[in-house]
């Protein structure tokens, strides 16, 4: 991996991402997982760890873990084990978190993505199933915190990478790619504001060739923007420390968006000894190969595979294919248009150009596009068969966007049809030639520029409806005659 250095230091980053799985019920209880309910109204006896309660595993969570394993080309373990991670914290009702330790459900795999036009591969160590904790609210409880356990027991997949990432840009690109994968295969809603997709970055720096430096873990990076800021700050901070002769202490830090700085957390420091042991309440999780096959057969085409198909089936350039497979909806929209109008490259140009421009302006996504794929296809067909020019097409698109009608009607109403009637054209040409004798003279004298001027005059006189091709040919003929 080509490491770009910061002040002579190599940046080394590993990621731990907590993806909330999009199940109806909790991982070990039948309480709902919906976000934003009244405090503790979605925390049942099991989630509250009331005496006598026991965990019962949710099949939907396992299925989603299998799907991720398949999506990142990992090994889905035939047998994995749930373990207890013991520590005291008010948002952890049992005093331990049920997680996976020695034998996780997803083993290995990799995430591939483009950083600019450079292809990157980040290897995964593992992805394991575990339960989320509740939330501590610090506002307005004089000297106290309020504990809401609605989130406790929400299924999480913790996805852990090797320390393969070498810059904050690459870190963000990785996170975006992983985000794309989990939302694409539908195991996570990807809502970062609501904490459905939370990243922890383990950051360290070293002089090239040196062993790994001591890392500090930046917790809960829940926006791509903060992710880059936090890592950049942390890297500078660590380099400054080292340059000033201080050793880096391993620590867990939080990023403060207001100050743009990271600071070490004060809690959980003494909880380093988690006393993991296999949870006696849960026998081993056994996943038959037939189940893995079933999940595979139900999985939709992955973005990387689809992009390759766009290149081979539609003859699109890599860049187009990658861009169009950023979201499932965009890819589907493209395919609908391309197949309807049989003009894949034209469709690609319009989607990446006019359509994206409009959507970005309105912060809308393709799902919200007021112009249907069928409408766009109809429009592109008219451009392709020469009925209207590309520029005229933009006027029609604008009208379609505003919902003013259907393609052909709009072309008529706006009189955008290109002039294909040769008599009318000849008439115009005659008039133009008559009115511009000097240009004609100059052309005959061998001045090419004069010809272009005449073409311009004809187009002008036809109010842009003449087909430039035809005009050229007709003019040449006349002037030759």
């Amino acid at each position, binding site marked *: 991996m080509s490491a770009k250095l910061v002040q002579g230091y190599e940046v080394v980053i590993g990621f731990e991402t907590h993806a909330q799985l999009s*199940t*109806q*019920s909790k991982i070990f*209880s*039948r*309480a*709902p*997982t919906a976000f934003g309910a*009244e*405090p*503790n*109204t*979605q*925390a*049942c*006896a099991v989630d*509250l760890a*009331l005496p006598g309660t026991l965990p*019962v*595993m*949710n*099949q*939907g*969570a*396992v299925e989603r873990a299998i799907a991720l394993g398949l999506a990142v080309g990992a090994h889905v373990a035939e047998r994995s084990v*749930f373990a207890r991670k013991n520590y*005291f*914290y*008010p*948002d952890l009702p049992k005093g331990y978190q049920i997680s996976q330790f020695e034998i996780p459900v997803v083993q290995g795999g990799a995430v591939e993505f483009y950083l600019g036009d450079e292809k990157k591969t980040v290897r995964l160590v593992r992805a394991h199933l575990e339960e989320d904790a509740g939330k*501590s*609210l*610090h506002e307005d*409880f004089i*000297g*106290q*915190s*309020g*504990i*809401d*356990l609605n989130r406790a027991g929400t299924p999480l997949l913790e996805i852990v990478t090797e320390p393969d990432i070498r810059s904050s840009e690459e870190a963000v690109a990785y996170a975006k790619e992983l985000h794309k994968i989990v939302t694409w295969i539908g195991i996570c809603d990807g809502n970062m504001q609501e904490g459905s997709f939370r990243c922890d970055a383990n950051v360290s720096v070293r002089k090239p060739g040196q062993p790994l430096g001591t890392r500090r873990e930046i917790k809960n990076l829940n926006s791509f923007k903060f992710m880059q800021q936090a890592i950049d700050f942390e890297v500078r901070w660590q380099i400054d420390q080292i340059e000033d002769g201080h050793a880096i202490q391993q620590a867990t830090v*939080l990023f403060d968006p207001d100050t743009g700085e990271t600071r070490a*957390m*004060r*809690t959980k420091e*003494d909880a380093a*000894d988690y*006393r993991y042991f*296999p949870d*006696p309440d*849960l*026998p*081993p*999780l*056994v996943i038959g190969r037939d189940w893995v096959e079933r999940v595979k057969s139900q999985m939709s085409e992955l973005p990387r595979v689809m992009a390759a198909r766009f290149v081979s089936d539609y003859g699109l350039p890599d860049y187009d294919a990658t861009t169009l497979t950023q979201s499932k909806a965009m890819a589907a929209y493209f395919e609908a248009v391309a197949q309807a109008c049989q003009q894949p490259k034209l469709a690609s140009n319009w989607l990446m150009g006019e359509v994206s421009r409009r959507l970005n302006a309105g912060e809308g996504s393709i799902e919200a596009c007021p112009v249907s794929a069928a409408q766009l296809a109809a429009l592109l067909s008219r451009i392709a068969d020469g009925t209207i020019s590309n520029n005229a097409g933009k006027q029609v698109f604008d009208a379609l966007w505003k919902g003013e009608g259907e393609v052909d009607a709009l072309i008529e109403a706006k009189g955008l049809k290109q002039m294909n009637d040769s008599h009318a054209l000849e008439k115009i040409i005659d008039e133009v030639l008559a009115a511009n004798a000097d240009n004609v003279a100059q052309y005959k004298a061998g001045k090419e520029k004069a010809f272009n001027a005449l073409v311009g005059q004809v187009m002008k006189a036809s109010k842009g409806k003449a087909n430039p091709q035809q005009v050229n040919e007709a003019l040449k003929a006349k002037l030759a005659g």
Partner: protein
Amino acid sequence: MSLNASEIQRIANLARLELTPDQSERMLTQINSFFEIVEQMRAVDTSGIEPLAHPVAVMQDIALRLRDDIASEPNQREANQQSAPAIERGLFLVPKVIE
């Protein structure tokens, strides 16, 4: 092997138990006398033996039972919080959590 006073303190802290000095003292003696009977266990040769976490695994292959992903637990906040030490607006109150 035997523990010392500082280990007792470390473990008591991990277990979130406050021990008075004399309690720690007694605890130390009792735990150490217990670990005397543990010695014979440590001497046993267990090479090649697989740990047994679930007893009936001796009788049959055991696999985790999975339930369908259905949310069916109704809101029972009141009943669930009836024995809670401190509640405000449905939240469990605790001394300030400092991050």
